[in-house]
């Protein structure tokens, strides 16, 4: 009997895992001892870090999109469909098109979703850049923005922990380059007691904010957003409020609806063993990428490092009957500190991050990676 591996989600993690499995199980696939199926709700694959560059006119939207099938090894069966239910006891998943897929091994990589609708008024009066469409819409607003106050308000949790800093620094550079920075006030709000969730990054950021004249308020949890005749008002759960002419937001995120609807968790994050990356209590279900409940950053690099572990372990389980290695919590993020410099952080479960002084070199490396991402997705890099 062939072993069926079903991968739900064709983003960073799902695509890397599928391609690594296809390579590692080449023989088993050619003899039809293993069948790998991917089910993904999108037939296009979008490079999300590029949204920031689209926002500031540094990349064109079509550079960020590829056909999902073109990134997958031909031995992988691809279904363009949305999973609506996961039943780990019966070892099956159900889809919107009414299909049922049985599995021996399941890999869930359904990512995370920005949900502005969780905060009244945020969707109507705020602008985000976490989807291609919203980034283009905001780009047009920024082009026309000549003076006034911009508030940058974060909800949590959200993917890409460094994006709040990146968008803020890039915005500062954007208006400096336009020669109108003195007419634009930038106000940043963050939900916890410091300006970034990673403490060393927050410490590094404070003098940088001050040098650039960026104001901030911490312990600011967006509760309601309203439009008044003078602009937009963001009210916090703490009782304070920020008035602005343009509200840029990273809304709070949730995992996939199917995970909530399957009763796995209320917020869509899957209880995941931090070392084995298996769904707690289920030996044949692996989880990778943003949809885990792990206390680490939801980032493409996290998805990538987890995917290497999941693929190695699945290959070892199928070939040898047991997994090969543990995940150590490794994360690495570039941080763009404006239009021409960048830095990076790396950390794991036991070692905290420590940002280096920004340099042009790191910025170029990031620009290079933006083009090379497609090799990562194919499991080459």
């Amino acid at each position, binding site marked *: 009997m062939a072993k069926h591996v079903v991968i739900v989600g064709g983003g960073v993690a799902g695509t890397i895992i599928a391609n690594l499995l296809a390579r590692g199980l080449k023989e088993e696939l050619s003899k039809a001892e293993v069948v790998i199926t991917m089910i993904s709700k999108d037939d296009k694959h979008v490079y999300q870090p590029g949204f920031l560059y689209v926002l500031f006119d540094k990349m064109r939207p079509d550079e960020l999109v590829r056909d999902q099938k073109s990134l997958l090894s031909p031995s992988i069966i691809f279904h363009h469909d949305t999973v609506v239910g996961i039943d780990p006891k019966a070892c099956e998943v159900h889809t919107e098109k009414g299909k049922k897929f049985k599995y021996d091994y399941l890999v869930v990589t359904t990512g995370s979703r920005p949900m502005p609708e969780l905060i009244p008024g945020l969707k109507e009066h705020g602008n985000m850049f976490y989807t291609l469409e919203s980034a283009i819409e905001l780009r047009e607003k920024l082009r026309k923005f000549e003076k006034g106050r911009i508030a940058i308000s974060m909800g*949590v*949790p959200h993917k890409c922990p460094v994006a709040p800093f990146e968008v803020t620094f890039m915005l500062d550079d954007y208006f400096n380059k336009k020669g109108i920075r003195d007419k634009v006030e930038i106000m940043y709000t963050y*939900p*916890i*007691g*410091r300006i970034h*969730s990673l*403490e060393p990054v927050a410490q590094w950021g404070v003098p940088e904010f001050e040098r650039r004249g960026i104001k901030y308020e911490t*312990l600011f*949890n967006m509760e309601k957003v309203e439009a008044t005749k003078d602009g937009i008002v963001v009210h916090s*759960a*703490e*009782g304070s409020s920020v008035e602005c002419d343009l509200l840029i937001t990273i809304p709070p995120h949730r995992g996939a609806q199917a995970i909530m609807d399957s009763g796995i968790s209320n917020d869509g994050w899957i*209880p995941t063993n931090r070392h084995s990356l298996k769904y707690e209590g289920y030996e044949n279900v692996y989880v990778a990428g943003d949809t885990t*409940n*792990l*206390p*680490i950053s939801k980032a493409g690099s996290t998805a990538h490092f987890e995917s290497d572990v999941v693929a190695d372990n699945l290959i070892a389980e199928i070939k040898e009957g047991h997994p090969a290695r543990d995940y150590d919590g490794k994360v690495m993020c570039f941080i763009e500190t404006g239009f021409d410099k960048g830095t990076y952080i790396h950390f794991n479960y036991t070692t905290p991050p420590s940002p280096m002084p920004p340099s042009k070199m790191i910025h170029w490396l990031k620009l290079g990676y933006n083009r090379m991402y497609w090799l990562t997705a194919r499991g080459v890099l």
Partner: protein
Amino acid sequence: MADKVIDARVSFCPGPLMELIAAMKSNPVGTTIEILSTDKGSAKDIPEWLKKVGQEFVGVEERDGYWSIVAKKIK
């Protein structure tokens, strides 16, 4: 003993603070709420948050690998 205990030991930063904010909203005035957190940042953030919103910070205690933070809804 607190009226309500929230075990946020598996949730990542800033999960514990978010859980407390939700509990403050959903419980009546007078409720004491204990939050258990493995995240060191919460032990600092939660008292600061309580001060900002004018709710009572009852105390914090470090236990075996986690923190217990107690708050009271007073308004």
